[in-house]
């Protein structure tokens, strides 16, 4: 499918999803769907740097929180409308991504992963001590009373926004994957020195990948304060964002845009169900068990497993 066709189809599905949920009146459905969609964006974004390029980022929560806190800051200082909040948060997180991209000059593998984890801790500490955005106490953000586009409640608007963000993230990820940039990133993942010696401008591509990945993660965080009406550092920097953005692509498959989508829908839904039927404390435990199971049984994720199955069928006479 051509990129443009894929974009049209994806956004058509997104609009259908938005329209269909207008028939549903239960608010819980929206908040559950919002959470799963948010993970689709995070997993898809993480996969651009982690899956396509091979640089494991443990600091997804930092990018997500940068998006969220950009909203808190701008909402307090300038009272900007929602689209401006989203755009600014995305750009700020993208710049952070660019900075992280420069880390790849000197670090790879475990060292890079630890550096991104450290980045999250540093930013967390910074926000905790920044009084203007609420510090450790957190900050209240009031949802605007008037809801545009005839949505019955503000949470409906946020849900619709998240649907569009997920569609956007998927279109971007797929376009990158299928372009010559995607092939260059795959070459970097497989062997960076060989890639450079085959003419791939590795630094430039890594910076691009880290910037786009960071920007999309930040974009997912920009609506969090409005969604929760209250945001505090432990919520925005929550470990579950970092763990899930790695676990979902790993479970779904890291080679294509479809893997993170499948992983996020599967793991996100399981977590929502567990949260309601068992308890929210069990969430990360479930993620952990699934992660161990997949790493040992299907290291290339669901998509890798499907590919292997398809290949074995096509080779049969």
């Amino acid at each position: 499918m051509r990129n443009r066709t894929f974009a049209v189809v994806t956004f058509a599905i997104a609009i259908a999803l938005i329209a269909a949920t207008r028939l549903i009146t239960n608010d819980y459905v929206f908040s559950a769907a919002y959470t799963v969609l948010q993970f689709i964006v995070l997993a898809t974004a993480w996969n651009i740097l982690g899956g396509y390029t091979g640089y494991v980022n443990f600091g997804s929560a930092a990018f997500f929180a940068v998006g969220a806190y950009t909203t808190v800051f701008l909402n307090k200082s300038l009272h900007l409308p929602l689209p401006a909040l989203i755009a600014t948060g995305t750009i700020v997180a993208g710049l952070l991504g660019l900075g992280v991209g420069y880390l790849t000059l000197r670090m790879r593998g475990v060292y890079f992963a630890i550096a991104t984890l450290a980045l999250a801790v540093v930013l967390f500490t910074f926000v905790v001590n920044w009084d203007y955005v609420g510090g450790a106490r957190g900050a209240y953000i009031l949802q605007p009373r008037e809801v545009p586009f005839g949505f019955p409640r503000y949470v409906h608007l946020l849900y619709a926004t998240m649907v569009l963000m997920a569609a956007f993230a998927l279109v971007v990820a797929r376009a990158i994957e299928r372009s010559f940039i995607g092939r260059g990133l795959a070459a970097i993942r497989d062997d960076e020195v060989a890639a450079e010696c085959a003419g791939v401008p590795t630094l430039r591509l890594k910076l691009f990948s880290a910037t786009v990945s960071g920007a999309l993660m930040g974009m997912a965080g920009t609506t969090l304060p409005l969604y929760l009406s209250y945001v505090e550092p432990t919520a925005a920097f929550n470990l579950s964002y970092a763990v899930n953005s790695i676990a979902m692509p790993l479970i779904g498959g890291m080679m294509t845009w479809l893997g993170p989508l499948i992983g996020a829908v599967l793991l996100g839904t399981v977590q929502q169900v567990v949260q309601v039927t068992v308890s929210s404390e069990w969430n990360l435990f479930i993620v952990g068990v699934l992660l161990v199971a997949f790493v040992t049984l299907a290291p290339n994720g669901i998509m890798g497993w499907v590919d292997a199955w398809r290949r074995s069928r096509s080779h049969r006479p």
Partner: protein
Amino acid sequence: MAAEPQSQAMSEPLLKVTGVTKRFGGFTALEQVDLSVARGERLGLIGPNGSGKSTLVNCISGTLRNEEGSIRFAGHDLGREPPHRRVRLGLARSFQIPKPFGSMSVLDNLRIPLLYAARKHGKLGPGQIVDEAMNVLRQVGLQDKAHAMSGGLTQVDMRKLELARAVAARPALLISDEAMAGLSASEVDDMLALLLTLKERGVAVIMIEHVMRAVMKFSDRIAVLVAGRKIADGDPQSIVNNAEVVTAYLGE
């Protein structure tokens, strides 16, 4: 597969390495090495293990930075140029230990240099890229494995792929780093045949090899490195008869 445009200055050799020195801590891997290669010339580079052959290749291709000396290629000072820029200028190399892009098929491995390096010589359409990749694969005898995953190839096929990927970059100078180690006699002949066809297209080749039969058959000229110094440089016959080379390389 055109070489660099002929309009470039012919007075200067294609590659000119002058006084290159490379140290690793207190160890001097290369000391004041001079080397030049003319357009279309075939140079054999020999020396015992640890003599600095691969280090020299790494300095020329840019994966290592030499502390002293200059490297000029096709009229450009390579000084601080990153490796990908050197490939685009027409300086391609293969690796002694094969480095395939393991998650890609053999064909997709060749797409990378065709997309990123050969573009310099005019943009290629998607169909042309596949044609050209298949062309190169036929030359190394990998055409039947074009759609196999490169990570699962045998060592021999990985070496062929390594060379094919360097050829696909459409180089004016190709550095082949021990492409023939561990190959059978007939496979060595296949590889030699491929390298000799490059000559017809005016591609210069530096061949680093321990298989003396191949080096002697292939080279217009041979340079000998011993302990980071070039001790001899001349036509194959004079090298074989050089007493210093015989002592250093073949033993007393």
